[in-house]
Structures are given as C-alpha cells and as structure tokens.
C-alpha cells in the first residue's frame, strides 16, 4: 500500500466509519429513550369527563386530573394485603422524591364504591402519605377511569355474603394530558420505581 492510499484510510475512511457508528448508536439510544418515555403510550387517555368525590366529599372531575402528571392506584379498603402494602410503598416513594413529589398528584381510586364511601376512604388514608388522595363515587363514573386504562376489576364472592375484588395492582403513571406513560408493578425495584416517577416531571 502506498502512502497516499494509507492516508486516505486514516484521514477519511476511518473518521467516516467512526462517525457512522456514533450516528447509529445515537439513533439507537434516542429511540430507546423514546420508547422508555412512551411505554404503552398509544393515546391511552381518560376518554370522557367524569364526576367523582374525594375523601373530603369534594367533587373531582377530569379537569382536576389535567395539568400535572399523576400516579393512579386502583384498589379497595377491604383489601388486607396488597393494597395497604402498595400504598405504604407509594408513601415511601413519595418521601424519597421529596420536593419533586409536589409536581405530581397521587390518587387511590376505589374499585369497590359500595363499601368505599368518602368517609371510609378518609379514615383509611390516615395510615399513608398525606399527598395521596382518594376517589370514589358512582360505579359508572368510576368506570370511565377503569376502562380508560384497561384496569381489571371484578367482584368475587366469599362465604357469608362477603366478597373480595380481583384488581390490577400496578401503579398507573400518566402525564399532564392523562396519557398513560408507564406502570410500576407491586414488586418493582425501588430505584427503578423512583426513576419512573422522576421521569414524569
């Protein structure tokens, strides 16, 4: 190989290859970031308006959810196991977010309005982080939220006219336009969960 062709390799071809690799890598990273931010996001939003009540019996509509990102958890107060554990986990996460948590809203949404009155929810929430609000009300109104995010909620009878609810246990993460942007599972690693929450604001 003569000096000329060698310098062509060193000064033109090698840099071009390096740039090309960098370009491809950057596209790859970019697309990965995008999919992380838009997990499951195919315009999954709250479809229509609704009228629900919080733990202080104050009316809450879609307009109250819009404007800042929110974390939604669907559950019921008669759940002795996974619901209090998840709400306690969420309380820990909110504590760890510190001031950042003020940019988010947190809702515990009842899938059992028959038993979860605003008064019952108020008492129930006493055990958890004060930033968590509750929503309950007419089943049809709750269905707007349940259906919007494809939440599974089903009444299952137990003995003596008791019943329990099978329900989706993940935290639902939505942006300020109510777009679904991700979920946090019951057993999510705490650092991953924190990163997902921080990614919301």
């Amino acid at each position: 190989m003569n000096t000329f062709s060698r310098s062509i390799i060193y000064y033109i071809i090698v840099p071009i290859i390096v740039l090309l690799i960098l370009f491809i890598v950057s596209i790859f990273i970019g697309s990965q970031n995008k999919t992380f931010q838009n997990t499951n996001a195919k315009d999954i939003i709250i479809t229509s308006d609704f009228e629900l009540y919080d733990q202080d019996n104050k009316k809450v509509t879609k307009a109250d959810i819009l404007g800042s990102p929110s974390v939604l958890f669907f559950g019921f107060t008669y759940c002795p196991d996974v619901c209090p554990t998840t709400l306690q986990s969420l309380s820990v996460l909110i504590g760890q977010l510190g001031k950042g948590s003020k940019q988010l809203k947190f809702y515990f949404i009842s899938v059992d309005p028959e038993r979860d009155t605003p008064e019952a929810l108020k008492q129930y929430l006493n055990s958890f982080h004060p930033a968590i609000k509750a929503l309950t009300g007419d089943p049809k109104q709750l269905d707007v939220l349940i259906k919007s995010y494809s939440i599974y909620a089903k009444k299952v009878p137990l003995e003596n006219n008791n019943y329990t609810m099978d329900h989706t246990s993940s935290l639902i993460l939505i942006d300020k336009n109510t777009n679904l942007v991700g979920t946090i599972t019951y057993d999510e690693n705490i650092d991953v969960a924190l990163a997902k929450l921080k990614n919301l604001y």
Partner: protein
Amino acid sequence: MLKKILITLSLITISSSVLAYEYKIGKLEIDHLYIRVTTGTNVSAGFMTIENEGDQPDKLLSVTNVSFAKQVEIHETTMDNNVMKMRPLNQGLTIPAKSKVQLKPGSYHIMFMGLTEPIVKDKKYKASLNFEQSGSITIEFDAEEAKGYYQEKHKH
C-alpha cells in the same frame, strides 16, 4: 469501637432471630406473628412463619377461637398478570416436610372478616391454629401497621 458494637448488636439480632421461635407444637415452629392494624375497615390479615422440622408434611386446616372476628379463613393472594387475586384455601395450607412456609403480604395470610373490634397497635390478639398432624395451639398476634414492599423485603 462503634463499628464493633454495631457488629455485635447485629450478630445478636441475627442469631436471636434464627434461634428463637415463639411457639412450638410437634415438629412445627411458629414465628413472626403479626396482625394488621385496621384503619376503619372490619377486615384484617394475620401473618406468620411456620417451619416444619419433621420429615412428614403437615397442614394448617383452620384458625379458630377468634373472639375479635366473625369469620376466619386461610387465604392465598396471587398475582396473575399484575392482577391481584385473593382466594380461600379450602383444603388448608400444606407445610411440607423440612421446610418453611411464610404467611406474608402477596402470598398467604389468615383473613379475619367481620371484625367485632378494631385492631389497634400494642394490643395482642389470640387465636388457635389447628394442624392436621400436630394438633392445635393457641397463639397471639402482635398488632402492627402496614409495611410497604420495600420495608417488608428488608425486614428480618
């Protein structure tokens, strides 16, 4: 110096939690019993660890003599595609030979329904555990507040 104290303390804690059991019946050792403090609802769950040192399996068939609840069942919570399901174990909970079964959130619990009094912190709650092989034993649950998954996982 502080480090030494800490190491000694943690060794004591570890060894005591390994060696000590609260109740023993037959080949079963029962430990870490607690019931969840209630927050307005009339249901609660009881948790514990049951270790079977024998070489025969045993079975927790029922929980009786509960003065604070109208209905008591042994339940299993499962996660099916992130959907939480809670079901009674009508055949009882098997404790295999030479193994340990943990009743803990997201797994098994004793379900107390129709509570006749709230479960409050620092009170003790009595119940009888009825095993197929080992017979019955009266135990006491400590009342504890709900722990999150993160606290639950690192506890011991």
